[in-house]
């Protein structure tokens, strides 16, 4: 990986929540790299910390949560030149001007529920124009033109009319497009998408995913796509991080994750989802339930549910390299996969 194409490096990020009831290690040592123009998929179930990771990058985690350690190195290109400067986002003041300059202009975010991220009392046009005017040095007239252009780009019918509409007058799919328009209007280098299609119908989801892929190409934009849907990951991601209870358990390119997974959790997850093109008699099940965040099992967090658990070996698994671009947090990963017969070829 040449450094020119690296956009963001997250190194051993830890974000903890200091609550009355106890300490919640929402993100507990996560590392990954996002390349320019590529998509990183972050997949995991509820409580795994994927949303908090995203919010930590943009320094949007509020007390009682805070980043306790780790680095988020952003390779910022200075004014279109090939030169990049390295900026550690964890060191910035979360309410200060530096992070605010980066937010939206360089790194933008879209959310699951567009109903709550669009203001109900402002028109769509007002919100997009505000985003433009705040971050770019343009006048209102030009901002308006850009807004219309952006809405057209995201496939909104009659963009000029949409400028005057309010969020309740748009359908779910259109709201999501409006949010994407608002996020992309400053041409960010990285778009963080936190479950953007989970609340949408499947045909609308297909539209939005197509749209995002198209925009990624046009804008040469990196995407960090957070979801729990493995199908969407297979569609969108180039590289995948699998998270479980605050830790990343596997990191690899998308083909490897689906065809050659190393970590027992990833494997079990893949075997437990029903597929539209296949028949199985019974779905394979991961026994037990996800533990609550206050009582994460000691050692390997997955061990109570792992079919390969061996007490002596699985005490504290490290994130080890398993292949040329493949890491897994499992002490027995090599043993298991050598003899594992279920792998899909």
């Amino acid at each position: 990986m040449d450094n020119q194409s690296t956009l963001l490096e997250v190194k051993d990020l830890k974000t903890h929540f200091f609550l009355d009831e106890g300490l919640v290690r929402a993100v507990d040592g996560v590392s990954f790299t996002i390349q320019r123009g590529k998509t990183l998929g972050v997949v995991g179930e509820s409580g795994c910390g994927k949303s908090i990771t995203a919010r930590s990058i943009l320094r949007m985690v509020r007390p009682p949560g805070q980043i306790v350690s780790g680095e988020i190195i952003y390779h910022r290109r200075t004014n279109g030149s090939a030169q990049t400067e390295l900026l550690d986002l964890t060191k910035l003041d979360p309410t200060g001007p530096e992070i605010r300059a980066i937010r939206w202009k360089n790194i933008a975010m879209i959310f699951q529920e567009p109903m709550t991220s669009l203001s109900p009392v402002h028109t769509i046009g007002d919100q997009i124009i505000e985003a433009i005017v705040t971050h770019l040095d343009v006048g209102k007239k030009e901002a308006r033109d850009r807004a219309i252009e952006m809405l057209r780009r995201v496939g909104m019918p009659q963009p000029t009319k949409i400028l005057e509409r309010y969020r309740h007058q748009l359908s779910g799919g259109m709201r999501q497009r409006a949010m994407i328009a608002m996020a992309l209007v400053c041409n960010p280098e990285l778009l963080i998408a936190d479950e953007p299609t989970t609340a949408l119908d499947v045909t609308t989801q297909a539209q939005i995913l197509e749209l995002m892929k198209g925009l990624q190409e046009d804008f040469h934009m990196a995407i960090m796509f957070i979801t729990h849907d493995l199908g969407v990951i297979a569609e969108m991601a180039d590289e995948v991080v699998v998270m479980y209870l605050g830790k990343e358990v596997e990191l690899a390119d998308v083909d490897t994750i689906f065809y050659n997974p190393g970590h027992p959790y990833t494997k079990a997850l893949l075997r437990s989802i029903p597929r539209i093109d296949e028949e199985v008699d019974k779905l394979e099940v991961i026994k037990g339930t996800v533990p609550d965040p206050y009582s994460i099992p000691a050692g390997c967090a997955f061990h109570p549910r792992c079919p390969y658990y061996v007490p002596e070996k699985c005490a504290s698994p490290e994130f080890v390299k398993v292949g040329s671009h493949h890491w897994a947090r499992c002490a027995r990963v090599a043993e298991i996969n050598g003899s594992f017969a279920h792998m899909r070829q």
Partner: protein
Amino acid sequence: MEAKSSGPISNALQRESKVVDQAVAAPSEGYLAEEPISKDKLEEKIAVATPRQLMWWRFRKHKVALASVVVLVIFYLLAAFAEFVAPYDPEVFAASAKFVPPQIPSFIDGNGQFTLRPVVFGLSQERDPETLRVIYQPDESVWYPIYFFVRGQPYEFWGLWETDIHLFGLGENAEEGTLFILGSDRLGRDMFSRILYGARISLSIGLVSVFLSLILGIVLGGISGYYGGQIDNAIQRVIEFIRSIPSIPLWMALSAALPPTWPQELRYFGITVILSLIAWTGLARVVRGRFLSLREEDFVLGARLSGTSEMGIILRHMVPSFLSHIIASLTLSIPAIILSETALSFLGLGLRQPVISWGVLLQEAQNIRTVALAPWLLLPGMAVVIAVLAFNFLGDGLRDAADPFAR
């Protein structure tokens, strides 16, 4: 298609035995919930904790709300035992002790020595040359010890038996000295005693009114929310109409309608009814809102599908769900009632002399000159403020604790 009562039931019982015979084996590995009964006492305690207990635990975290509970308990205890705690009869006046400033007891006597028993200093009189009024100052040359559980002016304890023991007082020096902890008013009556007696009325009016509005609010709000449609429409419009009338003119009109010849007790009752006629509307809206939202909940449908009757659903499913919200709302509406009574009496439209309430006491403070000379006459207002604040914090704490169970 009427089902015979015996047929389906016996069929069901036959099905029952068939099922039992099928001997449900231990479910396969796939989905047995693996967690053992927790050895952790705390986790188990939480798991079997009733929702009420959970609410209490959540409530305990609100320090301010807890403090408010303490404050209110003290207030109500003082009001209940007013005769005992008050050193003076509230009506007894002394021409020679008008507008005495508050006499703070001290632990250091006139000789500068520390005493365990608190003392209060005597008063020296001076005539202000400009206003020709008598000004009282503490005279450090004379002091009187304060005794506890002392004999004082006789009274009837809760109207049951006569006694003359007071919590504290001057004892045999009562004739000479004065113990006006919070000062005295224009007739030389002890403010502290009067405030205590006033607490009785002011604090109890809050409770009685709230009880009346509770009934009205739950019944009408419940009907409105449960049946919906035209009934709901009608009741809501009535509520809005009542709420849109400016309250003070409304109270003035209603209490002016109370015949002045009525004895004070009846008048008191009339005032509580008047106040609850407005207060129920707020409660009714909360109840209606909760009913409307609960009606759509899946567990209500589930209960209906289990064969529970409509009344059973209301009583066993819906009422327990909104009870805690109602209590919180109730607690928040008491301050409004206390303030209303105070305002009414202050304006002379509510209770009147010789009945003592905080509002009546504040009537004395209507004259700006009087207040300038004797600002301690405003102390009943402080009592109102503290009581209202305490109820507000308590209600906030209850409302936060009553939130639907978090995931």
